[in-house]
């Protein structure tokens, strides 16, 4: 599904075709206890781009990353980095920098010694080491903290040391295994932007792993959504959000309401109710499907006639009102679709307490916003 992604951000306007840095083909890791942890994963990553692998816990993200770093030998499949097959290369001979989930900084060394370590191990000219260490500590804004021991640094500062250690030998590839997961939200968001800035400054090809959809959307050029060891979709952030290819992706990013039914041309049929919508790909009439509609694409009003612009509208009753700070989330149910709890965002800050629990309202949406997918289960 690569048709004409619109130029979304400034970075993506320059659509020059760049060489492929990482190529994975049918990468599989089977630990022999049930389903494979990673199942035939194939993707290309262009030089200098920031790819995020997004998926729930246990979906195989770390395993995929560890195969690329060389810590785990794939059961089958192959990886090339800048055109060279790396399967036979031991981890310490690969040009890959990694920031670990729990950072794995060396506790008996200072910040500067941690950053110098890869240079010593990789036999850099000893005279060049101190200057290089200083440059990279400056890059992560830790210029004055080189002599501190690791346990004398705050969580955010330790993150920065780990980034400097992973980048100081100018690897061909940077891997980030959820290093921000343990931070509190404010610091996490700050560090996300730091990752962006540093990646921008050095132009290093990066693979980031996370289960945080917000982080993926904010920092990435490309996103791969994984579930159960399989790649579900590989796309640009906006494309992924607007055009999910299956129910998993639709459900994982954003908040959606699902309606089960059977396909018919131009929509789906649930009981004797026909809902118009947009089919994701070719779906034969009568196939079991699920329609997904995002919470921000449903409109909610008191009087039916003010929804004249919507393709679909019907009366509903408010089941719950949830205050989320910058917006309200209404949960609404209609007698015409029993058992479906519609989730509706409401942003009108002027009229925040418009509807109470039990109030009769009308909800509606446009056919193009109702995405219809083949049922997987």
């Amino acid at each position, binding site marked *: 599904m690569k048709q004409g992604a619109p130029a979304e951000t400034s970075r993506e306007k320059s659509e020059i075709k760049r060489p492929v840095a990482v190529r994975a083909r049918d990468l599989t890791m089977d630990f022999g206890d049930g389903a494979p942890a990673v199942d035939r994963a194939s993707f290309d990553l262009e030089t200098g781009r920031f790819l995020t692998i997004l998926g729930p816990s246990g979906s195989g993200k770390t395993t995929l990353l560890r195969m690329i770093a060389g810590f785990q030998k794939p059961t089958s499949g192959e990886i090339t980095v800048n055109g060279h097959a790396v399967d036979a290369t031991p981890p310490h*001979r690969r040009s890959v*920098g990694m920031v670990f989930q729990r950072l794995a900084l060396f506790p008996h060394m200072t910040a500067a010694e941690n950053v110098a370590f890869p240079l010593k*191990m990789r036999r850099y000219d000893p005279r060049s080491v101190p200057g290089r260490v200083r440059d990279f500590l400056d890059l992560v804004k830790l210029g004055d903290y080189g002599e501190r021991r690791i346990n004398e640094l705050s969580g955010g500062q330790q993150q920065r040391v780990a980034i400097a250690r992973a980048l100081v030998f100018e690897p061909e590839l940077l891997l980030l295994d959820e290093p921000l997961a343990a931070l509190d939200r404010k610091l996490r968001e700050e560090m996300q932007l730091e990752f962006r800035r540093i990646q921008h400054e050095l132009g290093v090809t990066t693979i980031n792993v996370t289960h945080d959809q917000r982080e993926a959307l904010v920092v990435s050029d490309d996103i791969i959504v994984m579930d159960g060891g399989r790649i579900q979709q590989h796309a640009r952030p906006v494309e992924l959000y607007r055009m999910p290819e299956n129910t998993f992706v639709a459900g994982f990013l954003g908040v959606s309401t699902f309606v089960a039914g059977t396909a018919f041309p131009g929509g789906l049929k649930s009981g004797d109710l026909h809902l118009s919508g947009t089919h994701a790909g070719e779906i034969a009439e009568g196939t079991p499907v699920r329609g997904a509609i995002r919470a921000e694409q449903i409109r909610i009003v008191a009087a039916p006639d003010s929804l004249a612009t919507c393709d679909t509208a019907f009366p509903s009753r408010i089941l719950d009102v949830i205050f989320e700070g910058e917006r309200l989330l209404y949960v609404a149910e209609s007698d015409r679709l029993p058992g479906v709890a519609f989730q509706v965002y409401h942003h009108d800050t002027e009229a925040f307490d418009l509807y109470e629990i039990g109030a009769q309202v009308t909800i509606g949406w446009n056919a193009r916003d109702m995405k219809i997918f083949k049922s997987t289960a």
Partner: protein
Amino acid sequence: MISRTQRILFWAIVWFSIVILSVPTLIVVGASLTAGNIISFPPEGLSLKWYGEIAMARDLRGAFGRSIIVSLICLAVSVPVGTLAGLALTRFRLRFTNAIQVYLLLPFTIPLIGSGIGMMLVFGSWRILGNVWPVGVALAAINIPFIIWSVSSSAASLDGDLELAAANCGAGRVETFLHVTLPGVMPGVITGGLLMFVLAMTEFLVSLLLTDARTVTLPVQIYNNIRSIITPDLAAVSSVFVVIALFAVWLLDRLVGLEIFLKSK
């Protein structure tokens, strides 16, 4: 909230423990300072004459020297073995880890008199009894669980990805071990080593069985002297032991910090 009664009870227990633990030491140190000729507490007058006596006593001095040698041999054996065993049990995924762990802790479960007699028989048949070094090896064997435990607990507190991070930085297996794993567990090695040294200095039962008149170590020598007459010089020797132990604790604090030692499980 802690109630008043709880607080009183708490402090009572604390003080009881402190007194119980320190009274024997205080009495021995006090008795060693006596100016009289029989061991007594409180001492009759104050003098350091018994320290002069033991410094001059050839048998005690010889035994002290042998104890130092035995302890150093014990260290030379137990530090490498205990460190590698402690690391193997925690940092590598081995088969039979549990079985190995139980096997290495066996010395704890066998009464010292049992292992002492066993080693006496074995060393006897090997014709090495009568030397000083087998005593050091024997003490390493019976106390080895202490250093394994100390290294393991230090290793367990290290991040499990540390070796992978080292590999990622370009370090091969040997470099990873020398530059990352070993320095990482150094607090445990130092703690365990000092513990082994102090234990070897003061071990009595097994040493009694493995030594004779020519190879007698300090604790055994003290015991021999008690059997004839109890004089204040024994209190002075015991005080020297106390000083050695205090020195070990001070060294530990300087090298790794006591709080690390106390925190380790």
